[in-house]
């Protein structure tokens, strides 16, 4: 079975290389890569069906053994990567056709997609430090080159370079964590399975802190989230979809694997993780309501959902500290379920927004409107995905939030003040964010898809039925209606983290009751729909009522409602801003209108009025870098421009590091 996995991953890369030579064949790449994804997913599904692990080790002589281990956690991530990759490859075919320009390297891009998918599969399955780090680095580099596809624009290059720097900061932290375990524990490279720190609690906590910090930069927790809204708007849509759906979850995989390997961290780290998660949720949803770039809104909402996943994980740790196994189990199951749900609807959202942005050739929502008439399929899928992301019944987003709520409410039964207070704060934040995400997504949908169009698009809309992404909408519906089998399999994953795992049937009956409620809801709504159909005999189409508005111009023509009457994105943000104004920064430029009859106010003229909302943390990083730049400029070190000098600096650095290691290695032993 494991050979299927190897064949699948190698076939993905092989397809990527071969399609270089088959430039005229459009279907080769997608067909073969999709087939390879199916091959790879079979062993992972088999792990869940037969409920036993798969393991395989390859002997690479000087470095030891390369172990591929598919336990429940790894195979869960393999399933997610392969399924989202499957749809991403099909969508990328459509998206790349729209983005073609002369100097864009499409074949290289497809090769890099293959490399990225394979490296992600290796990251989650390799159980050996060197292999893990190697695949991690390949993943980061290939994603950098993927983001920079539209390299004609300077903004794209700038944001991709920022992404590269931030990813390597996280890489340094992860490497230092692994190196500390190597020094203090064992001198072999197979450390991801069995670790004990011989009662050296301080070192264990430092290692766990470093690793969690490194992985949370990748996942996108606040205050390390700034790369997400700077990268996803400028990457092509299929890459944003695949990255936000899978790559951010690889960071979560790292956190879960750390906790599985190293055991429980100290209480300070748990509280820190809880605080970071709560802050992520609030920051993410606040800025999702305030932005005007469609992809920035979706990436901030990504940050919010990652915060919910982190909240489940940290509450699981807190509950285990106080020996409440049921609370811990429920919160962890809810988190892992949320990983699955979020991948599905986030990728769907990004793919639909890719369609929208290519139709309008810009990301700004203030120029869009009435797209439900021109792109009906895209709007339908977008609305389904946003119902999912707001965790509304009867779709799957509700189930994972319900499980986290279950864990939170169950924690009140244990007489523990700390746990009760943390649960209360989490419940307040989750309830707030439930309504706030409804706000964010109704705002987004209404400004982009509904109402009147705010600007003319020059393209024709010949939208065909989205065969490539409609199958992403089906799990949203099915998992919501039939949560019981998915819950049973995911509880196997969280069962991995508990030593004496007892399968509790109380939660399964709860899942069945929820399913029964959803069926009631669907039956009632269908019944009402038929009643409505029976009683509507004649429908007259006319203009919007708008309290009898009738503007008659000088030629005695009746002018209907223009698009300037409806609420814009900024109108919604403004009222929300009055609620949260100390926490977000507003930049506003106004021009004073002093004419008697201002005529230029008819157009959306940014000279007259411009307002944007900025994250304070984003400002902080930019200000720190500006400050450092100023200080460094005063030192008058100007780059010489010769590449030989830079190589010399690199060689000197390596020599110093090796010397320090050799001299002090005797001290550390």
């Amino acid at each position, binding site marked *: 079975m494991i050979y299927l996995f190897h064949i699948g991953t190698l076939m993905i890369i092989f397809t990527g290389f071969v399609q270089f030579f088959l430039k005229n064949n459009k279907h080769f790449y997608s067909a073969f890569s999709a087939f390879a994804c199916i091959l790879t997913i079979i062993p992972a599904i088999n792990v869940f069906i037969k409920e036993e692990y798969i393991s395989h080790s390859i002997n690479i002589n000087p470095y030891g053994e390369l172990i591929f281990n598919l336990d429940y956690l790894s195979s869960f991530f393999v399933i997610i990567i392969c399924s989202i990759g499957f749809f991403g490859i099909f969508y990328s075919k459509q998206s790349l056709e729209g983005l073609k320009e002369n100097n864009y390297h499409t074949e290289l891009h497809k090769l890099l997609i293959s490399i990225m998918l394979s490296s992600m599969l290796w990251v989650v399955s390799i159980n050996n430090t060197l292999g893990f780090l190697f695949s991690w680095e390949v993943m980061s580099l290939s994603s950098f080159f993927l983001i920079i596809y539209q390299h004609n624009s300077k903004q794209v290059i700038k944001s991709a370079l920022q992404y590269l720097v931030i990813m390597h900061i996280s890489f340094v932290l992860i490497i230092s964590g692994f190196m500390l375990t190597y020094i203090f524990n064992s001198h072999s490279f197979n450390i991801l399975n069995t670790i004990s720190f011989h009662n050296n609690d301080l070192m264990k906590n430092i290692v766990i802190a470093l690793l969690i910090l490194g992985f949370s930069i990748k996942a996108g927790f606040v205050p390390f989230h700034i790369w997400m809204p700077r990268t996803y708007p400028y990457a092509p849509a299929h890459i944003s979809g695949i990255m936000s759906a899978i790559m951010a979850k690889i960071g979560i995989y790292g956190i879960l694997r750390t906790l599985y390997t190293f055991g429980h961290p100290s209480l300070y780290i748990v509280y820190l993780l809880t605080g970071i998660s709560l802050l992520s949720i609030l920051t993410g949803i606040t800025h999702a309501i305030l932005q005007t770039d469609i992809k920035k809104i979706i990436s901030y909402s990504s940050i919010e959902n990652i915060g919910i996943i982190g909240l489940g994980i940290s509450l699981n740790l807190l509950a285990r500290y106080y020996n409440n196994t049921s609370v811990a189990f429920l919160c962890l199951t809810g988190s892992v379920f949320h990983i699955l749900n979020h991948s599905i609807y986030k990728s769907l959202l990004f793919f639909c927004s890719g369609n929208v942005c290519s139709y309008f050739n810009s990301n700004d929502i203030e120029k869009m409107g009435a797209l439900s008439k021109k792109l009906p399929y895209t709007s339908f899928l977008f*609305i389904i995905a946003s119902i999912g992301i707001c965790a509304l019944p009867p779709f799957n987003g509700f189930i994972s939030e319900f499980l986290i709520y279950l864990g939170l*409410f169950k924690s009140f039964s244990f*007489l523990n003040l700390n746990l*009760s207070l943390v649960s209360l704060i989490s419940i307040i934040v989750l309830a707030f964010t439930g*309504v706030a995400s*409804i706000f964010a997504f109704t705002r987004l949908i209404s400004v982009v898809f509904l109402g009147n169009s705010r600007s003319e698009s020059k393209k024709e809309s010949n939208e065909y039925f989205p065969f490539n992404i409609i199958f992403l909408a089906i799990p949203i519906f099915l998992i919501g209606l039939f949560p019981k089998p998915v819950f049973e399999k995911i509880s196997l994953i969280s069962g991995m983290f508990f030593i004496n795992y007892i399968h509790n049937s109380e939660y399964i009956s709860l899942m069945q009751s929820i399913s029964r*409620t959803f069926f009631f809801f669907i039956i009632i709504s269908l019944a009402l729909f038929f009643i409505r159909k029976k009683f509507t005999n004649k429908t007259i189409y*006319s203009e*919007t009522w708008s309290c009898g508005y009738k503007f008659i111009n000088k030629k005695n023509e009746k002018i209907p409602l223009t698009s300037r009457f409806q609420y814009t994105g900024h109108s919604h943000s403004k*009222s929300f801003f009055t609620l949260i104004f100390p926490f977000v920064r507003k930049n506003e430029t106004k021009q004073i209108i002093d004419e008697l009859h201002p005529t230029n106010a008819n157009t959306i003229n940014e000279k007259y009025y411009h307002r944007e909302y900025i994250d304070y943390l984003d400002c902080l990083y930019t200000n720190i870098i500006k400050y450092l730049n100023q200080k460094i400029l005063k030192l008058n070190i100007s780059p010489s421009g010769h590449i030989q000098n830079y190589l010399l600096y690199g060689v000197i650095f390596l020599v110093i590091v090796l010397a320090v290691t050799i001299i002090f290695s005797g001290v550390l032993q």
Partner: protein
Amino acid sequence: MILFTSLALVLIMPLLITGFINKIKAFWAGKQGASVFQGYYDFIRLTKKSQVISNTTGPIFKLAPTIYLATLLTSTLMLPLISGYSILNFKLNFVVFCYLLGLGRFFMLLGALDTGSGFEGMGANREITFSLIAEPALFILFSSLTMLNQNIISISELFSIVGSSVEYSSILRTLIIIILFIIALTETCRVPVDDPKTHLELTMIHEVMILDYSGIDLGFIHFASGLKIFIFNTLMIGFILSPELSPGLYTVYFILLQALFVTITSTLESCMARFRMTHIPQFIFMSVALSITLFAFIIIKRSI
């Protein structure tokens, strides 16, 4: 038998409640007012009318009232209407209840914003801002009662926790009813949060979201607004009546208490004006503050 009575109550009472509100408001205004059954006559009249639909709207506009009413009906099935018996009774169905109401709100907002008119946008914006503040209050209330019970509960068990055997039960119940009353005023768009009879731009919140509906859609929405008042009154009544009464007596007391709460709301509506728009969030935040007080009270009570 209980099942049939509950279903009959759900189907008959909402429009009766609307008629009753109008009758009491007419009493305070010195008028005779329309008959109590006017809601039924209006609904039947609306089913016979044809619909006028705006050109700007799409399929969401037509779907919205159906789904709104469906969510409210499903939520009603989760409430214990007579003697603590509810059809969809499982632990933590309170969360499903709140999120179903959220689904209804989502579709009404989309339907309102679909028309492309500024009035609906205004109403949608204000409504979701008020719900933002009111929603955590319900959850804090539920978590304090869960803490009192020391185990997770369903809505039917929610009412029996603060029964008369618990000490300080009357204080707790009064506090809970006040919190629920403020939330009910927000959700059902009554004065002092929203004026349902308004035609002025300044005061439009819920009423303006349904400006463009006609025909049976409007009938569904009238029924749904009455049903929402019914739902929140049920939540409050559950804390007053004990579920050990016989079903017949419980039904009689239930209807009487519904009439009482409806009288209180419509009296408030006739005798005071809606608050200034900037004062409304402060008013709703009062319910959050009260529920946090309740939570603190229960923590102290349990740790003693």
